[in-house]
């Protein structure tokens, strides 16, 4: 096998954080190489540097044995290295075709002008080629859902026929159909003797898809596993640097002790996101809500927190209706939003600011005056309880890793001693160590009699943690499943699609 990607002694810092520390990595023709590691381990950083998104501080890169210095993602793509990024990689305000040829419109010039007809035709062909022909190339990208937008990115990369394809945590956001498209592309590339670098935090997925697997931790390469060496515990151990103690999920299968209903929703309607939706949340229960990305479950979370008003229907907490966010908070509801960086946290503010803001009424005197000592004590308590890794509570949140950011977001609501917690994808983009801590925390809270609404796109998490699972599809409640040992992912998925 020919070595196609070769990275030696690469280092990269972001301010005070060391993202990559002397990393050596190589990949060969005809393989699907997995990259796995906790958040902040550097797996996205190393690949994004190779794909031209940013520059390394030190180290050398070779591509097909030659020096490799891409000036931008487009430059890298042109020369044969394409990357599908984790976050949204499309521009919403322009057409699909323009996104596919973003930064390369120059090649569609007819005289001084842009030949829109040819642009659209070529883009449509690119979409058809990857099996995403249902997308109209002339459409405005912002009108499409997340999955179709991902497919556009894939088309954008594939139209350049890359020799190396990097897929960064893309599949979590995709439905089965989307996943199949991407798997088939990856397999075809391997079969054509090209290279795929696949990044995922989903151990099962990465083990089934990849030929070899490299584990990163704290910006260092820990170990590379060959296919035959794949073994879940060994990989996990090398990922977090120690043996996982205790269980990942909870291991009891008892019903909640109490039967008291704390939150009750009746006939909620909101566009196509909620259709005649009714359910009850009991005290001391973890209620999972699952479905595909756009089934309406994220909207449900916002509605229950008073952040969106349903068109019709009611929901009550202890029999009293919730009228606004402020009211929801008074009724002891807490909400951790799905989009951490834009909805849960203010990145340019400190840990203290972020945690304190939700609890101002808890520690201020007469809900008015703030004494620094009380504030610090309040924040410190949460930070310690969650063991947030930071230089101090005055550190800016933007400098924290994903997991620690999520802990801050949790901290906002723990301090308020919320009785009902609405958690929308609480472990999204969080590494295993933190994930486990979160699960333990959720379980502990459940046993203290708190109620948790766990909205999640991860099947295993729902099955592993929930007392009951509500499956949503197109805004409707499709199925209610009760916790049991026999529940498998297939059981759950069949109601989603």
């Amino acid at each position, binding site marked *: 096998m020919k070595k196609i990607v070769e990275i030696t002694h690469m280092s990269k810092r972001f*301010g005070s954080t060391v993202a990559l520390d002397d990393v050596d990595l190589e990949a060969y023709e005809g393989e699907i190489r997995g990259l796995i590691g906790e958040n902040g381990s550097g797996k996205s950083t190393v690949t994004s540097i190779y794909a031209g998104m940013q520059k390394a501080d030190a180290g050398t890169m070779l591509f097909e044995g030659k020096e490799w210095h891409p000036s931008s993602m487009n430059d890298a793509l042109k020369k044969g290295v394409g990357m599908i990024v984790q976050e949204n990689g499309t521009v919403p305000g322009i057409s699909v075709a323009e996104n596919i040829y973003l930064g390369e419109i120059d090649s569609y010039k007819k005289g001084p002008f842009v030949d829109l007809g040819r642009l659209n035709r070529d883009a449509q062909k690119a979409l058809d080629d990857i099996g995403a022909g249902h997308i109209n190339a002339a459409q405005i990208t912002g009108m499409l859902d997340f999955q179709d937008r991902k497919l556009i990115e894939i088309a954008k990369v594939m139209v350049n026929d890359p020799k190396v394809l990097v897929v960064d945590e893309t599949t979590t956001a995709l439905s089965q159909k989307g996943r199949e498209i991407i798997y088939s592309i990856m397999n075809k590339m391997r079969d054509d003797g090209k290279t795929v670098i696949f990044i995922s935090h989903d151990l099962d997925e990465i083990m089934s898809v990849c030929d070899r697997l490299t584990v990163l931790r704290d910006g260092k390469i820990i170990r590379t596993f060959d296919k035959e060496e794949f073994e879940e515990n060994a990989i996990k151990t090398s990922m977090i640097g120690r043996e996982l103690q205790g269980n990942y999920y909870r291991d009891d299968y008892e019903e909640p002790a109490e039967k008291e209903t704390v939150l009750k929703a009746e006939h909620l309607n909101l566009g196509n996101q909620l259709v005649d939706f009714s359910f009850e949340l009991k005290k001391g229960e973890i209620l999972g809500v699952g479905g595909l990305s756009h089934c309406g479950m994220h909207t449900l979370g916002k509605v229950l927190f008073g952040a969106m008003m349903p068109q019709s229907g009611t929901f009550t907490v202890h029999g009293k209706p919730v009228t606004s966010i402020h009211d929801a908070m008074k009724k002891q509801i807490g909400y951790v939003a799905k989009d951490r960086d*834009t909805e849960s946290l203010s990145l340019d503010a400190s840990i203290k600011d972020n945690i304190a803001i939700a609890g*101002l009424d808890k520690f201020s005197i007469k809900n008015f005056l703030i004494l620094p000592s009380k504030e610090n004590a309040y924040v410190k308590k949460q930070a310690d309880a969650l063991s947030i890794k930071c230089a101090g509570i005055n550190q800016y949140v933007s400098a924290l890793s994903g997991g620690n950011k999520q802990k801050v977001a949790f901290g906002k609501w723990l301090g308020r001693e919320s009785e009902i917690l609405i958690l929308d994808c609480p472990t999204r983009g969080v590494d295993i160590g933190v994930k486990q801590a979160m699960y333990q925390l959720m379980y502990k809270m459940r046993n203290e009699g708190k109620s948790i609404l766990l909205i999640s796109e991860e099947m295993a998490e729902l099955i592993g943690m929930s007392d009951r699972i509500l499956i949503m599809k197109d805004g409707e409640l499709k199925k209610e499943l009760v916790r049991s040992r026999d529940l498998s992912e297939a059981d759950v998925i069949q109601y989603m699609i």
Partner: protein
Amino acid sequence: MKKQHIKDMIFRIAPIVGLLILFALFMVFAVIKDINIPYSMKNILNQSVIVIVVATGAIFIYTLGSFDISLGANMCVSALIGAMAYNRTGSVLVMLGACVLCAVLISLVCSVLASVFHLPVFVTTIAMLSLLNAGVLMLIGANGTGDIVQVPADAVSAINTVEFKLLVLCLYLAVCIFVFNFLKLGREEKFVGGNPECARLTGLNNSRLAILAFIMAGIGVGLGSFLTITYAPTLSRNTASSVGMDVIISIVFGGMPVSGGARSKIYSAVVGALSMTLLSQIMLMLNLNSGISQMVKAIIFILVVYISMSDNKKNNLPR
């Protein structure tokens, strides 16, 4: 780690260093040009005080990440109303009350309008500017004493002292610092400026906070218009016409980020306004023509703000 820390420090104190350098320069020229330094000191305070008061209030609006272009016009209307109130009643207290009440009311109308109709705050203030300018002409017309509205000079001469102005300034500054740093309101304002959506999802009522911010700013404008009357009891349609832009320039010069948020500083107004006044004084001593002194001012402005704010780490251009 350390290096970064030091860099942050430098950025943070750059405006203050700028103020000190300007002060040093001022002293050097003052000695060379043999000017009346004690009088000049008093003069600098006198000239900065109004901008400081108004700008300090305006910080609350800037903290939210928005800004108000109608502050000067609001001040003019409030001062006119205050002066008319004095002429009716002969009471300085009534004048103060009228100034503050009118300014707060105008701010309130502006912010409530924006919040009720979901308008962008800045654009609302643009419309407000036109309305207030028209209002000024009408008030002057209604007053019927030519192009001016006047309060008898002896009515306010007793309080036209640096000591009184400093007292007003310190009181208001103390209140603002207190509100900004020790009250729930201040925290919430800063948080909204950092991330409005997150603030909303944390139960903060953004439009209520915007209204409160405008009220705080309105109080500053009201006090500013009161001080304007005491300083120059003859008002015209041009009263406070330069204050609006002076406030923006001073706040930015003082190191306040225009995007607001957690890094907002209440003392920016003080530092910025004093710096700008010192700069003008230096220009005056050099007796440059208006055009050249404005060019020098512009260049120094961009340079100082560049040193204190520029974020070269970011890939993208700021917006």
